[in-house]
């Protein structure tokens, strides 16, 4: 019903290759983009910077991991370590006196280099062993961060991020910081949307499905695995840097610990592998869930008249977070993106479902 296909005729090759052949998808996209731009006027500053901004940035991070795990099929349990590389090198570069624009590039590129080291593991092994290796590399990175005062300012210390500035303008207002996050997230989204229909995207999918078979077809899986790792690490690095610059305002090793790696992977899985809109949903669910569960649980406890210790209340969101991942994998392994796809497919033919059967 909403997704009308009538009147969609392709008269040229370029229209046939449209990103969104169905007008409704296009309108929805413009609508949500407009909503995103208008958000500072619609939403209170506190909500804007404590919900919308991290949501957009974690979405960008999840999209970067999705490129690697969803499209190229490579496991990565050390994603937060790569984000840390970008964040720390950017902050150090800025403190050294380099403008933010170049510092972000430096952060992204250094992440790419370190991330490609992870790819060296991917060239030797895959699947489970790759996951284990990247996990070990995450631990190595944690150790390096915690034991090299030159990088992190020492164990349990933090590195203050200088005021964020673009094009010589200091950006300190809520709306300004939010627009930076929005801009970056939109950039990453556009990149991924278009990557799907390029040779690169198809080659990545071929490598995902079976790397040996891809090699037989002439796709250099060695090369594309490195490309996938480098690209996703670049996104991770810049996201990490923007996260520190606009949200945390200081960098500390705990922000990039192994739990964060697992969290980003959870966003990707809950959202759906190789689903762009799913990454948005997944990031939102994983980020908002602790607050919601806490609220629900406190309300429930009030209602029944039970008293829970602070420790119980502190750990319930964690348990719920684990349960959420488990339930999602049991009920809908393809994630929220698939659920959205199902609804869309249903509405596509809605009053005339008999056509499907």
């Amino acid at each position: 019903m909403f997704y009308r296909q009538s009147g969609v005729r392709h008269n040229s090759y370029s229209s046939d290759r449209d990103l969104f052949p169905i007008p409704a998808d296009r309108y929805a996209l413009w609508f949500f983009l407009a909503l995103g731009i208008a958000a500072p006027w619609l939403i209170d500053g506190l909500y804007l910077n404590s919900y919308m901004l991290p949501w957009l940035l974690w979405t960008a991070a999840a999209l970067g991991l999705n490129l690697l795990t969803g499209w190229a099929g490579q496991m990565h349990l050390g994603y937060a370590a790569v984000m840390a590389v970008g964040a720390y090198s950017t902050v150090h570069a800025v403190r050294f006196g380099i403008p933010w624009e170049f510092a972000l590039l430096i952060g992204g590129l250094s992440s790419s280099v370190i991330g490609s080291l992870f790819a060296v593991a991917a060239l030797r092994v895959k699947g489970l062993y790759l996951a284990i290796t990247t996990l070990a590399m995450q631990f190595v990175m944690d150790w390096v961060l915690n034991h090299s005062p030159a990088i992190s300012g020492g164990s349990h210390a933090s590195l203050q991020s200088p005021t964020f500035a673009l094009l010589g303008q200091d950006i300190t207002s809520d709306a300004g910081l939010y627009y930076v996050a929005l801009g970056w997230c939109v950039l990453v989204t556009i990149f991924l949307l278009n990557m799907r229909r390029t040779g690169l995207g198809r080659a990545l999918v071929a490598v995902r499905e079976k790397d040996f078979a891809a090699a037989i077809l002439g796709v250099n899986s060695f090369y594309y695995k490195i490309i996938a790792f480098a690209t996703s690490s670049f996104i991770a690095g810049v996201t990490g840097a923007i996260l520190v610059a606009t949200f945390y305002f200081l960098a500390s090793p705990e922000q990039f610990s192994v739990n964060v790696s697992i969290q980003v992977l959870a966003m990707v899985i809950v959202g759906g592998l190789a689903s762009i809109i799913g990454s948005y949903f997944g990031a939102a669910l994983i980020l908002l869930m602790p607050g919601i569960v806490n609220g629900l649980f406190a309300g429930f406890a009030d209602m029944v008249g039970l008293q829970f210790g602070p420790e119980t209340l502190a750990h319930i969101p964690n348990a719920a977070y684990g349960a959420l991942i488990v339930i999602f994998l049991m009920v809908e392994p393809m994630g929220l993106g698939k659920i959205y796809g199902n609804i869309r497919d249903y509405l596509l033919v809605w009053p005339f479902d008999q056509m499907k059967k």
Partner: protein
Amino acid sequence: MDWVFLAELTVNGAITGLSYSLFAIGLVLIYKSSSVPNLAQGGLTMLGAYVVLAFSYELGWPLWVAIPLAAVIMFFVGLGIERVALRRLAGRPIVMILMMTLGIDIFLRGTTLAIWGGAPRPMGLGVSYDPFFVGPLLLSRIHIVGALVAIALFVAFMLFFRSRQGIRLRAISDDYMASWSVGISVERGVGLSWALASVVAVATGVIWGEIQGVDQTLSLLLLKGLTVAVLGGLDSIVGAIVAGILLGIVENVGSGYLDQMVGGGSRDLVVAAVLILTVMLRPHGLFGRHDIERI
């Protein structure tokens, strides 16, 4: 070079390493039968220790009642996890299976801490902390107990794998399809391996709970246990024991000398390095089966 220092590091390392083997045996049991890398073993270990404490500490029962009772409960917990969560994921991509075990791990840790709280508690096994000298070497009693338990479990599983049920499990680990076609209940076998791994988790939890106290850090044994399991070959119990001794020695000697250089805390680094090197050089480990992939 101080030979006594080196010998002490080596022997203590080997004994500590055998306690890591305890953890690794749980991983190996599950991987052997179903090719599932059980990243929830840390959570299971923690849960096992807390269940023992719930009986011994809160109900005041003696430990020789509490530990077997906890083992029985964990046996069914393991069965339940396999039945509810893992069975549906058979044949799914490995990333989903990994994420499932990670999710279970987070869930188990969160639930355990929500119920019993996170403050460290003693296990109260009653092993004395008095120094124990063999010649000039200073050894830790509790680690020796852990090593003995690991060896006992190893012998028990070696015998088990010669029994009728054990041969079924071995058949399942060799070939899913072939075992199905000769009438072995693969599901039941895999469930049994989860149950046994959970029982092993109780043993691990008790020993390590005594060593470092029962709290959240029990689940951090995962990295070391995983390293031992990978180094020995993920589907080899002999490998778990041998690799445990090896890793323990490398870790203890390596960090014993490295700590003096970098100022402490190099244990995890040595373990992670061993893990990365193993996967890079010999992914199937020392005794694991080398699978050749088909297109």
